[in-house]
C-alpha cells in the first residue's frame, strides 16, 4: 500500500496555486476576456499534466489488453480507479450515447463543494464563483490528460450545478 496523507493539504495546495496563477498576471483592461481564457487554459494545462501522469499509476495494476479494448472500458477506468485516486470515490453516474459521447456526473465533488457561497457578501460570492469555474477547468484538464495518455483525444467541458451540487463533465472523443 502506497503512503497516504490527508487530502486537506492537497486541496489547499490546489486552491492557493490557482489563486497565484490567476492573480500574478496583470490583465490589461483591453484584453480582459482574453486574459480570462489564458488563465483558464493554464489551469487546464496543469490539470492535464497531473491527469496524464496519474493515470499511469491507475493502469499499472490493470491488465491493459482487457481493460482498454474500447472507449467504454477506458471511461470506466476513469470513473472508478482514476476518480478514486483523486477523490476517494467513484463517479456517481456514467452515461454514453455509444457514439463517442460520454457524460460523467459526480455528486458533491469535494474540491468544489468546499467553495460554498458566503451568504450575504456579494463580492466574496463572486470570487467563489470564479474560483469554482477555475476548479472545473482544472478537473476537466485532469480527465483530458488521462484520456490523452490512453491515446484518446477528446474535447472535455465541465459544469458545476451549484444548486444540485453536481459536477457534470461532457466528453466527446475526436
Amino acid at each position, binding site marked *: 500500500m502506497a503512503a497516504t496523507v490527508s487530502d486537506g493539504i492537497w486541496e489547499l495546495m490546489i486552491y492557493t496555486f490557482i489563486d497565484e496563477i490567476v492573480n500574478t498576471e496583470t490583465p490589461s483592461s483591453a484584453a480582459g476576456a482574453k486574459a480570462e481564457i489564458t488563465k483558464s487554459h493554464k489551469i487546464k494545462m496543469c490539470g492535464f499534466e497531473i491527469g496524464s501522469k496519474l493515470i499511469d499509476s491507475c493502469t499499472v495494476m490493470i491488465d491493459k489488453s482487457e481493460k482498454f479494448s474500447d472507449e467504454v472500458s477506458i471511461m470506466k477506468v476513469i470513473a472508478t480507479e482514476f476518480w478514486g485516486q483523486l477523490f476517494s470515490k467513484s463517479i456517481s453516474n456514467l452515461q454514453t450515447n455509444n457514439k463517442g459521447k460520454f457524460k460523467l456526473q459526480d455528486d458533491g465533488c*469535494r474540491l468544489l463543494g468546499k467553495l460554498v457561497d458566503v451568504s450575504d457578501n456579494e463580492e466574496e460570492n463572486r470570487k467563489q464563483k470564479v474560483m469554482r469555474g477555475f476548479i472545473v477547468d482544472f478537473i476537466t484538464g485532469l480527465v483530458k490528460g488521462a484520456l490523452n495518455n490512453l491515446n484518446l483525444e477528446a474535447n472535455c467541458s465541465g459544469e458545476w450545478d451549484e444548486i444540485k451540487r453536481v459536477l457534470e463533465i461532457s466528453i466527446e472523443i475526436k
Partner: protein
Amino acid sequence: MFSKSEKISVELLSLTYGTFVARLLKENDNAEEVNLQLHKIGSNIGNRLIDEFLSKSRKTACKDFREIADVIAKYGFKMYLGVTAEVAKWNEDDTQFSIYIENNPLSEFVMLPIHLQQTLWYSNLLCGVIKGALEKINVMVECEFKQDTLRGHDSTEIIVKLVEIVEDRYEDDEM
C-alpha cells in the same frame, strides 16, 4: 465545522506540487523569485490550515517556543505530510531551531535540473506554511531552508527563527 478528511496518495500530492512548481518556473525564469512565490503561497496555506489543525489536533496552548517546535514537527508534519520531522540545533536562548525532514513527500519523486540546483528551494512552500500558520497564532517567525537533499546535501533542514510572540490583546478569545 470541518468535514472528515479523506486520504490521497503521497504520489498525487507530490505530482500536484511538482506540476504547479513547474508552471511557476515556466512563467518566471528567476528561481529566486519562484522561491519567494512558493513561500508566499505556503504562507496562504498556513493561514488557512491552522484553525483546522488546532481543532483536529485538540492541542491546548503551547507554553513556550520549544513546545511549538515539537508540535510542528511531531503533529503538523504527521497530519499533513504523513511523516514526522526532528527538531534539533536549538540556539542558546531557545529562539532558533532546525527541523530535519527525513523523507520529504513533496520531493520524493523529484530531480532538479542542474541549472536549478544552486538557486531553487524546491520545497520552499513548507517554510511559508510554517510561517503562515504561526503568524495566525501571533507567533512571528522567519523560516528558511538551510539544506535540501535535492541539492545534493546530506539532509533536508529548515531553520525557524523566532522574531516575537505578540501578546494577545483580548486573551483566549481566538483559541
